[in-house]
């Protein structure tokens, strides 16, 4: 699995990644996307990562970059 930019988040990231891959390959790909059983793990991972991004000063830059790429499905279709 790929590493997190914050080593302290690696453990929870690996748990989340494993959960996601299982959900994606066994459920989403087969058309069953209703339940998101990885949500609790993603919350834990995100909490760890958000703290690390703030400490590294990446959060502001990230928000600015994301503002430019947020688009709705409708906009996507028009492309």
């Amino acid at each position, binding site marked *: *699995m*790929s*590493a*997190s*930019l*914050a080593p302290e*988040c690696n453990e929870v*990231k690996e748990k*989340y*990644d494993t959960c*996601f*891959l*299982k959900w*994606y*390959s066994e459920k*989403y*790909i087969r*058309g069953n*996307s209703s339940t*998101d059983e990885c949500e609790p793990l*993603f919350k834990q*991972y995100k909490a760890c*990562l958000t703290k690390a991004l703030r400490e590294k000063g*990446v959060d*502001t*830059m*990230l928000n*600015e*970059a*994301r503002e430019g*790429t947020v688009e709705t*499905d409708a906009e*996507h279709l028009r*492309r």
Partner: protein
Amino acid sequence: MKIYESSFSYDYTFPAVTLAYFLRYPNPYSRHVLSTDVIDRYVDPETQRLHTVRLHLKKSKVPAGILKFLPRGLTGPGGSSQSYILEKSTIDLKEGWMETESKNMEWTGILSVIERQSYRRQPLSEIPSPDLSTDETQGIKETTSCKTVVTFVSQLGQGKILGRKKHEHSKTPEEETHKQGFFAAWSAAGIQRTVELIGVKRTKSALVNGKEGMNVVLERLRNGGVVGVLEGMRRDRLEAMGGEGH
């Protein structure tokens, strides 16, 4: 501004390609990728599309051709540097497409690179088979096409060199004047063309590596499923560290 386009296809099914896209780092062609994090991910309840935002940290070396335009101290020795890449993807499994967008987050004034890829399911079963009885035994049932469009924009020489960094500390008028003096020696348009062309050259080889990396992951996926890919990653990591993996 420069635009570079290329098209190719993967001899794998669309779902496999999307899975490989999420699993593509690390692979033997991605030694420069230091980390990958998921920033946001959700399924749109109406469309069932999967939206993902990821942040990659990549090791890079600023080419000598660009380095000469930069103030000293902006990069490490020999132009060594790290850069954050924001990647956004949307997958519609029912309609059989994936759209991705990757862009650099820093130094966008020097060179902003936005790479957009469109993956499309290409069913081969639409081609009528001369013998219907062999339908089941045909190896490949679909391939996945991938169209890449990369846009390069440099604003070098327009006093915007520090890009987003300008928020962090406002420059004094003296610094501003000094900078203009430095760039006055060059034509802004000439600098931008040079930098954009260096970007195009780099992207061409990066796209080849990206495709090779995806194919390694796709082959591992076909041979051993997700477990096969993860085992491959472990072997790659051991080799990268110089240890004897086996």
